Every structure is written in structure tokens, then in C-alpha cells.
């Protein structure tokens, strides 16, 4: 099973990268866009909105972790 697992891990890392939340935001954005388009409602805003929100959340988590580490550790960066 090791080569299969290594193959799967490689493609997961290659496609999904550092933060899986971004991939979820992409899928959610495109899915909402497709649903709205099927309902014949203006849908072009859905992908940018969810994707940029996902980017904001992802970056904010890193900033919050850095801030918490500085406060908790005392020494800081």
C-alpha cells in the first residue's frame, strides 16, 4: 500500500497545497455559482466572493496564530 499512499499524498500536496480550506472555498464557490446559474439568477459574483473570503479566512488564521504565539511565548518575533 505504501506506493499507493505516497502517490495519493503527492497529488493531495500538489493540488491542495498548504491549506485545504482554500480548496473547500473553491468548490463551494463554484457549486454556489452553478446552483444560482441553474436557477437563472445572476451568479458571476459567487465564485469571487467565496474564494476571496476563503483567502481572507486562511490568511487571518495564520495571523491569529502568530499573534497568539507572541502573546503566549512572550519573546515574540
Amino acid at each position, binding site marked *: 500500500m505504501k506506493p499507493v499512499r505516497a502517490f495519493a499524498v503527492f497529488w493531495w500536496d500538489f493540488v491542495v497545497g*498548504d491549506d485545504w480550506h*482554500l480548496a473547500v*472555498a*473553491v468548490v463551494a464557490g*463554484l457549486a454556489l455559482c452553478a446552483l444560482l446559474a441553474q436557477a437563472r439568477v445572476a451568479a458571476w459574483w459567487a*465564485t469571487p466572493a467565496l474564494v476571496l473570503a476563503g*483567502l481572507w479566512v486562511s490568511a487571518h488564521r495564520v*495571523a491569529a496564530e502568530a*499573534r497568539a504565539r507572541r502573546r503566549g511565548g512572550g519573546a515574540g518575533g
Partner: protein
Amino acid sequence: MTAGVVALVAAVFLACCVEMVEATTIVLAIGLTRGWRSGLIGVGVALCVLAVIVAALGPALSLVPISALRLVVGALLLVFGLGWLRSAILRAAGLKSRHDEEKAFRDQRSEAAAVSLAPRAFDAYGFTVCFKGVLLEGLEVAFIVVTFGANQGRILDAALAAAAAVVVVLAAALLVRAPLAKVPENTMKFAVGALLTSFGMFWGTEGAGAAWPGGDAALLVIIPAVLAVALAMVGWLRQVAGRPPAMAQPGAVTAGGA
């Protein structure tokens, strides 16, 4: 040449430059430490594999219906682009250490020097490191070339842009015979991330069945808008994290995994 084609060529060229700089650092470190023969064979084999991937995937993608192609390609470009953009934003905000080619070169050289080398034998270590380095750095570029090219019916333009980047970076590496530390790699990653994200949004949305106001001209709004949002995030993150911009130097404290 339309704005879309210019953006396509720019995205492929910049992405290829960034990956070529990283691959060149690996090959230089191996070549200068363990000799060039086996490493260059590894480079050649990796380039052949990448050429086969582009040659096989390009025509295959042209058989896929355009809406399905745009949905899948849009999603892939979005995931790649957001990954690049996220890293670039965190680096610019001082929350992640900048990529430092000189440090990467030193690390690679000391690793290579630690592995024993049989005199005049084929150097499997040098071959493997160079093959993997070039293949992994090149795989993302190959995907970008194939997906951009197939979507706009301009695989040749995309391939030429990638080839131009290879020539430019190789020429620079031959001239300086040292890691290309002065290349503004992080700025280029920021631009590539914004371009990939913008094209991903554009094609993904069209593939999902929606129409952009203004059609193709919407790209002229999407690209600057994504750049503006990304730059705003950098400023905001600097305030939230409470770090001065001076922290965004090589060797700064890392966060977020990398």
C-alpha cells in the same frame, strides 16, 4: 494581441521563471558539489517527461467539452493561484519567511556533500535530486501551460512563453554561475498568484454556467481587483499581526506550515 493573450503569456512566463529559478538552484548545487554529468542527465530525463505530459495532455484536453474544461481548469487554477497568492501575501506581511535562493543553495550543497561519491561511477544521488527537482518544479508549469493553452486554444503561445522563461533564466544562471538570489521571486509569485486566481475565477464561473457582465472584458476588472484585494490583505495582516514590514526579510519567523 488581445489583453487576454497578453495576460496568458505573462502568467506562464512569470510562473515558469519562478520555478526555473528554484530548479536551477538545485541543479547548480548538485553540479558544483558532485560534478555535472549525472545531474544533467537527470535534468534531460525530467524535461523529456514534462514534454511528454504536455504533448499528451494538450490534445486530450482539446477533446473535452469547453464548459466542462473551463470548470475543471478554473477550479485547478483557483487552487494553485490561491496557494501562490496566500504564500505571497503572508511573506509580504512578514508572517512567513521569504524564499531565499542563497540559503536553499547552501542547504542543498551541504546535503549533497554529505552523501558519498564513488569515483567515475554514475552518480545516482545527483541524477535523482536533479530529476526530482526539475520534474516537480516543472510539473506545475506544465499544468499551467496545458490548461491555459487548451482553454484559449493557444497551447503554442503558452509553450513559447514557458520556453522563453527557460532560456532567460538559464542564460542568467550561466552568466552568474551562482544561485539567482537577486531575482524578485516573491514579487513574481504575488503577480502569478493574482493572475492564476483571476483566470481561475473567470473560467470557473463560465464553466459553472454563469456569464460575466461585459464578457471577456471582465478580466480587465477581475485582475486589478484581485491584486487590490491581495494588497489590502497585506496591509491589514501587518496591522492584525502587529509586525513591522521589516520582519519580511529572509530568515524571518515562519508561520502557517512552510
